[in-house]
């Protein structure tokens, strides 16, 4: 019914992009130069997504498609016997992605009316046209990615997002309201984001090439993620499939800013705060998580790939959290926390995937599940990762928009110039507190459920045994616990520094307009309650039944296409179990301790933070402030390596290639010059040469005849 019109979901925003992009300036100030149209379009996309999801899960309409995927496509073009299709592919993961992406985008765009429309300057106001057009295209990228039906189509939308992130991070790369320094900063941040993600994209493209080759020229989800095809391709050439998985994950590392390509995301804070919220919550970095979740069947083929995913995730979670500990910029703290939380998602997906991959065996005929209990436990990791992605989308959008509200009112991003804002901006303060509690994993808030599920899955992997791989997972679990502690600490450090204590700034406009605070309130409800979907969740939502849809032990779960069989229900036990294990209470205690510590250090000020870092002079403090010298490393690498390579190439170009061409031409010119001296214009010279030549030839002929009796 409505399902057939799923293609409208990404199409509506791209129409808005076109209309606002071309006609926005004619729409006038009243409509925020097209802002209203974009919000309307986004809301329409959201409603459509909601209807599609409801129909997919059987709440409205005739059929219940769940848990099979609904796929439709048209032929795009045909080359030889290869046909490229373009279509949409709706399963529970796609539903999930487009639901939260469009919903959060609606909130962010509404908020943007207040945030971007708050200038008195006519010129800055007119830039809303460009802003709203670009965010609409950005959303197109994300929604298109969610509903794509082939990997190539997915890649197209993936690149659209890359382009939009470049445009929006560099939104203020000229005529920055705060001066040219900021504008330069924005320009270089945009370049960095673009170039760093490009490195990942090259990997992803390489991965797609290999898959294209290994999968006999197919990139459709229905073919690539089919159990039999995967098994056949893997048995034919296991190394190739592993390489393809790793390359695809390389793309994810770039897009989701994981170790070691993590450095562009903090710099991306140079864009408008609403763009940061969009990048961190609804689009861009979530695309990486989505791709791993989407390509899960592929990654499952080799446990080592999953191990890589988990290790990268765990390491990023830890490192990013440490960098958030001492940053004074309110947006950068949030940026690092995004990196850290994304790390959790990959840790969860990787750990769960490792469990599942060890529980199956891949043979030429298909994939056989050998250990259902282990497989089910691994599926929990998949769910926990996806759940954390959704929860994170809500609370991170909320946190960024709150910080935007604070920045809007104070005109600074430095937390040292804030403080005591609770009285001046009560709505922002309360909603941000909810966001902080949620991300810190305070019991019963959204972040609590997903984060503890993640840690639970990782714990499952070593379960007290410490040898070889288990050792790695034990370390990752430990890192995860420490990260949970740090997360609670730096988030509350942020909140206490901003909203408690004395006001240290110059001026504060007070609470933001309603167009900004109302989205905050709506988002805060979700940031609090999104976790309960697990507890009271009905079976169709992204709960465990989806991932655990296992046929009688001989086919893989339902996120693989073509795994026919009955649904294997995983009950809500994992959530209830959460409260039965000591691990959960360890995390809760750690979180509480961190919050109290932050309170004592930054609100009560009974503990001086300077004691721990020698007032900012300790080596560790400086290392962290310099982001572990990552920007330095990038610079050194690009200077030493890139610049030297470029110089070498330039040398070759100038000296060898240009040299050959120039040498040839100057040899001709010089030779001509030299020879032209013979043309002195004197009749006698010419005559002498002619006669001399004749004599010479005559002598030669004579000699030849005399000596050899003939010329030939």
């Amino acid at each position, binding site marked *: 019914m409505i399902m057939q019109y799923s293609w409208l979901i990404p199409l509506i925003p791209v129409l808005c992009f076109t209309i606002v992009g071309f006609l926005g300036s004619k729409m006038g100030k009243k409509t925020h130069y097209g802002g209203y149209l974009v919000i309307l379009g986004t809301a329409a996309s959201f409603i459509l997504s909601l209807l599609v999801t409801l129909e997919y899960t059987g709440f409205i309409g005739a059929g219940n498609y769940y848990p099979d995927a609904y796929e439709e496509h048209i032929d795009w073009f045909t080359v030889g016997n290869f046909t490229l299709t373009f279509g949409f592919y709706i399963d529970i993961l796609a539903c999930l992605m487009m639901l939260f992406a469009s919903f959060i985008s609606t909130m962010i765009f509404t908020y943007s009316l207040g945030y971007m429309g708050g200038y008195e300057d006519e010129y800055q106001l007119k830039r809303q046209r460009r802003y709203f057009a670009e965010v609409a295209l950005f959303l197109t990228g994300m929604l298109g990615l969610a509903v794509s039906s082939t990997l190539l189509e997915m890649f197209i939308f993936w690149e659209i997002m890359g382009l939009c992130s470049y445009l929006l991070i560099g939104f203020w790369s000229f005529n920055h309201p705060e001066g040219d320094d900021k504008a330069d900063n924005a320009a270089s941040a945009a370049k960095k984001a673009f170039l760093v993600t490009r490195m990942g994209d090259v990997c992803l493209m390489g991965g797609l090439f290999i898959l294209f080759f290994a999968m006999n020229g197919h990139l459709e989800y229905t073919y690539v993620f089919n159990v039999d095809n995967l098994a056949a391709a893997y048995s034919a050439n296991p190394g190739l499939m592993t390489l393809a998985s790793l390359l695809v994950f390389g793309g994810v590392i770039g897009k989701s800013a994981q170790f070691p390509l993590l450095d562009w995301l903090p710099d991306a804070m140079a864009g408008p705060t609403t763009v940061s919220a969009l990048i961190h919550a609804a689009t861009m970095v979530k695309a990486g998580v989505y791709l791993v979740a989407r390509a899960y069947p592929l990654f499952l083929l080799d446990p080592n790939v999953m191990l890589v995913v988990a290790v990268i995730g765990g390491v990023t979670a830890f490192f990013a959290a440490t960098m958030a500990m001492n940053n004074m910029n309110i947006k950068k703290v949030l940026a690092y926390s995004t990196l850290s939380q994304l790390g959790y998602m990959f840790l969860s997906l990787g750990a769960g995937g490792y469990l599942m991959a060890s529980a199956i065996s891949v043979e030429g005929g298909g994939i056989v599940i050998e250990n259902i209990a282990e497989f089910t436990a691994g599926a929990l990791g998949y769910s926990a990762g996806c759940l954390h992605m959704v929860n994170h989308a809500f609370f991170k959008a909320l946190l960024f928009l709150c910080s935007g509200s604070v920045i809007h009112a104070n005109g600074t991003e430095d937390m040292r110039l804030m403080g005591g804002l609770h009285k001046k901006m009560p709505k922002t303060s309360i909603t941000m507190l909810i966001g902080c509690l949620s991300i810190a994993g305070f019991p019963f808030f959204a972040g609590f459920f997903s984060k503890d599920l993640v840690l639970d899955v990782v714990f499952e992997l070593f379960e007290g045994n410490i040898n070889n791989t288990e050792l790695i997972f034990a370390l990752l679990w430990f890192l995860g616990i420490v990260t949970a502690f740090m997360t609670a600490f730096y988030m509350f450090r942020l909140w206490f520094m901003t909203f408690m204590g004395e006001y240290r700034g110059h001026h504060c406009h007070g609470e933001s307009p309603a167009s900004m605070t109302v989205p905050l309130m709506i988002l805060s409800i979700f940031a609090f309650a999104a976790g309960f979907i697990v507890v009271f969740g009905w079976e169709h939502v992204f709960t465990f039944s989806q991932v655990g849809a296992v046929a009688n032990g001989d086919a893989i779960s339902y996120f693989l296409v073509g795994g026919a069989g009955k649904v294997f229900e995983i009950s809500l036990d994992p959530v209830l179990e959460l409260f039965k294990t000591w691990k959960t209470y360890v995390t809760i205690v750690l979180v509480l301790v961190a919050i109290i510590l932050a309170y004592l250090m930054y609100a009560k000020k009974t503990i001086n933070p300077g004691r721990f870092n020698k007032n900012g002079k300790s080596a560790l403090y400086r290392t962290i402030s310099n982001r572990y010298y990552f920007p330095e490393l990038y610079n050194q690498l690009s200077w030493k390596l890139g610049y030297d390579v470029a110089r070498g190439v330039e040398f070759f170009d100038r000296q060898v290639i240009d040299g050959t061409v120039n040498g040839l031409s100057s040899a001709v010119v010089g030779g001509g010059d030299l020879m*032209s*001296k013979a043309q002195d*214009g*004197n*009749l*006698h010279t010419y*005559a002498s040469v002619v006669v001399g030549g004749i004599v010479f030839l005559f002598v030669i002929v004579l000699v030849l005849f005399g000596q050899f009796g003939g010329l030939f």
Partner: protein
Amino acid sequence: MIPIEYYLTFAAILFAIGAYGVMAKPNTLIVLMCTELMLNAANINFVAFSAFTGDVYGQVMVIMTISVAAAEVAVGIAILLNAYKVRKSTNADDLTSMRW
């Protein structure tokens, strides 16, 4: 009968004188006359061979050469006259503008 070597030697000497004149004489009129000498040296060879072999082709060739030489002299004298009008000189060393 005078042996053919005499004719050939005479023609060779005549040709060498002509060549020397072309190469060494500054006056272009003399150069022109020397080219005539060289042509006629060739003509003598033709006639000599014609007489000694007893066929008429050599003499036909000589008639051709003489008519072409006449035309050549006409053109040559005309060029020299014009050169003299422009340069007020027929000295070969003065007429060197066709050079690099």
